[in-house]
């Protein structure tokens, strides 16, 4: 019981960390065609996440791996039923990853244009589809007692699912714009800051609509009504969201980014708490839902994995923070002159 509950929330935490870290990479990649006017702008955008994106993406692999290890049935049913959506995400991530490495390797505008397009597609697609997928999980997926999915890719593109997609895209756009504002100077910095200011009210609107729509499309609030203390999580998230604007007005970009990170973690936990103990609810019948209790690994595996996670996650966070700290400071035109820059 206790082990499974711990793992349920660890599962949520790992997804939250993935969205928090790779989220600003997705945001920058999506803003890329709009903010990157000149080649120099574009390179500043890429290099602002250059040393970090790869490590950020590993949170996805860890979240996936932990789903596999702790809740194998969920891993099996979730990824086979979301087959097409997940494949699209994976191909998008492939394009994004190689684009950074390939773009600068041949000095030809057409070559760069190809990879510029790939950076946008490779960032926007996962942002949108992760939102669509998670909103559908909040809502329930048409799976039967054998875990067989009765639907198609288009089943997922229902209004609430799409709203989830828009929410994720907006969260990541603001997150990315703030990161770019931290990491750049001059004209591109001004534009990043301006776009964050412009997007914030839209994000606020989408969040409000999403919170209301969740009341009607999901049963997430049941846990909150049963344990009102959990409303604190929503409250903190909303405060963090307001905090973004507050710090943005003061041009305290790092604090604004931090508030944005907290908003993303809070938004993820809003769903995770609402879902508990269900990881993958069936919309056909609650009996078919996969929960932390009917879909988990054996106690021995959960214990071993817990030891691994307790030992290593703090270490990972330690060296990742060290890496972030090593590359703090703005990406300048001078930095782009070095041969290793993307």
């Amino acid at each position: 019981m206790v082990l499974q509950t711990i793992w349920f929330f660890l599962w949520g935490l790992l997804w939250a960390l993935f969205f928090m870290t790779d989220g600003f990479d997705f945001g920058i990649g999506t803003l890329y065609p709009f903010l990157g006017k000149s080649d120099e702008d574009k390179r500043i955008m890429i290099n602002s996440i250059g040393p970090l994106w790869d490590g950020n993406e590993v949170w996805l692999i860890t979240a996936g791996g932990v789903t596999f290890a702790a809740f194998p049935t969920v891993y099996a049913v979730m990824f086979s039923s979301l087959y097409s959506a997940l494949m699209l995400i994976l191909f998008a991530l492939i394009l994004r990853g190689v684009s950074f490495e390939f773009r600068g390797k041949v000095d030809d505008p057409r070559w760069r244009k190809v990879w510029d397009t790939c950076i946008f597609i490779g960032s926007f697609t996962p942002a949108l589809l992760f939102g669509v997928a998670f909103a559908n999980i909040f809502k329930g997926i048409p799976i039967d007692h054998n875990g067989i999915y009765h639907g198609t890719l288009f089943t997922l593109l229902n209004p609430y699912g799409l709203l989830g997609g828009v929410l994720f895209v907006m969260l990541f756009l603001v997150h990315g714009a703030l990161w770019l504002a931290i990491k750049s100077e001059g004209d591109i910095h001004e534009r990043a800051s301006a776009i964050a200011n412009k997007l914030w009210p839209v994000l606020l609107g989408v969040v409000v609509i999403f919170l209301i729509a969740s009341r009607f499309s999901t049963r997430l609030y049941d846990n909150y009504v049963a344990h009102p203390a959990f409303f604190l999580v929503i409250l903190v998230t909303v405060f963090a969201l307001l905090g973004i604007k507050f710090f943005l007005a003061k041009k305290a970009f790092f604090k604004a980014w931090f508030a944005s990170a907290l908003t993303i973690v809070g938004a993820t936990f809003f769903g995770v708490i609402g879902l508990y103990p269900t990881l993958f609810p069936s919309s056909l019948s609650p009996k078919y839902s996969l929960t932390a209790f009917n879909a988990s690994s054996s106690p021995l595996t959960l214990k071993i994995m817990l030891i691994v996670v307790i030992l290593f996650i703090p270490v990972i966070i330690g060296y990742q923070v060290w890496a972030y700290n090593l590359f703090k400071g703005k990406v300048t035109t001078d930095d782009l002159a070095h041969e290793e820059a993307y």
Partner: protein
Amino acid sequence: MDVVLLSRLQFAAATMFHFLFVPFTLGLSFLVAYMETKYVKTGDETYLRMTKFWGKLFLINFALGVVTGITLEFQFGTNWSRYSAYVGDIFGSLLAIEATVAFFLESVLIGVWIFGWRKLSKKAHAAVMWLVAIAGTLSAVWILIANAWMQNPVGFTIRDGRAELVDFFAVISQKFAILKFIHTVSAAYVLGAFFVMGVSAYHLLKKKNIELFTRSFRIALVFGLVFSLIVVIIGDLSGVIVAEKQPTKLAAMESLWETTTRAPVYLFALPDEENEKNKIEIGAIPGLLSLLVFHDIDAEVRGLNAFPREERPPVLITSFAFKGMVGLGFYFVLVTIIGWFKRNRLVDSPKFLKLMLLSIPLPYIAIELGWVVAEVGRQPWIVYGLMKTSDAVSPIAGSQVLISLIAFILVYGLLGATGFYLIYKNAKKGPEPAVN
């Protein structure tokens, strides 16, 4: 369309493509770390130029290895969901440990290495590459433990209709895993070494950057020689354990149909799976197989006919892949030994250099063949003796898999072409000129 076949093709395409880049990364990271360490110790700029030149090729590869690795992890869920649910308790935890313990370190530090030239001291920067190299090999440890478990499942019990872990230590310490790890990783190091030797040979033939490429060649030569020997020796030991744990694979590898004492090794055999015999057998060496796998020339080796048809792997593919791999393995030992005697007069050995240049693709072929032997030879099982591949597949429509398979082929095809073009271009261009 048949979901099992399509899913197998897709997994094969994804793995074999991934496996074009990962072995290179594993091997090159140690070589680059060594070159950078030499630079730190001697202050000799040539070593720095070497580090940057090989480092650049390493990074192109690394990017391709990383992005194609993610699809693999998720394919167990998308395409092999019944397998995942059945063995996730054991197999899933090994993959999760790989990500947490090893791959994370590698991915964070590679960014540090690429961008950290001016942020870190020289020593620290070199140390980062050593850590990248160690983390890469550590990743391989966990992946190969997971694969070894599919070959020879241990440390589990069947409870509630699935395999559950009972002895973690047995899973991670079984002999199959240890041999598989050493064999595969050594093969990866050989691949890296042959790449460095081959590209160096090209530039030495052109008489360009002679000092730099002679040094590169020699470093790779030692590395390649040592690990070529290890690959062959451990490969031989692996035969023993395959004979014991996977008799159908062994029989298919050797194209042996009848159970016999003094079982022979055929230099060439063309199996006829329909009629359960070999169509052509050339150069039988009596007793060699018995001797190799049981250390007794008179030992009995079970042939394929001792097993029901539906439990035999595809014999033609397995045996040809095996023979090809073994032949190439011996070739690598031979040419690295020749190289050892020519190491002080490389520039004056154009024929040998040409041979090494042409040998670049061979370890790639060998390592892919090795994968075929391991995976095709395990069929019809996904977990040997425990679960059939046909029972492991996701309950999804074949059309869905067909579309994703076509997408894989297109995307990976373009990616591979681009990747190898960039590697070729940069390898040919050579290092940046020395700054004085």
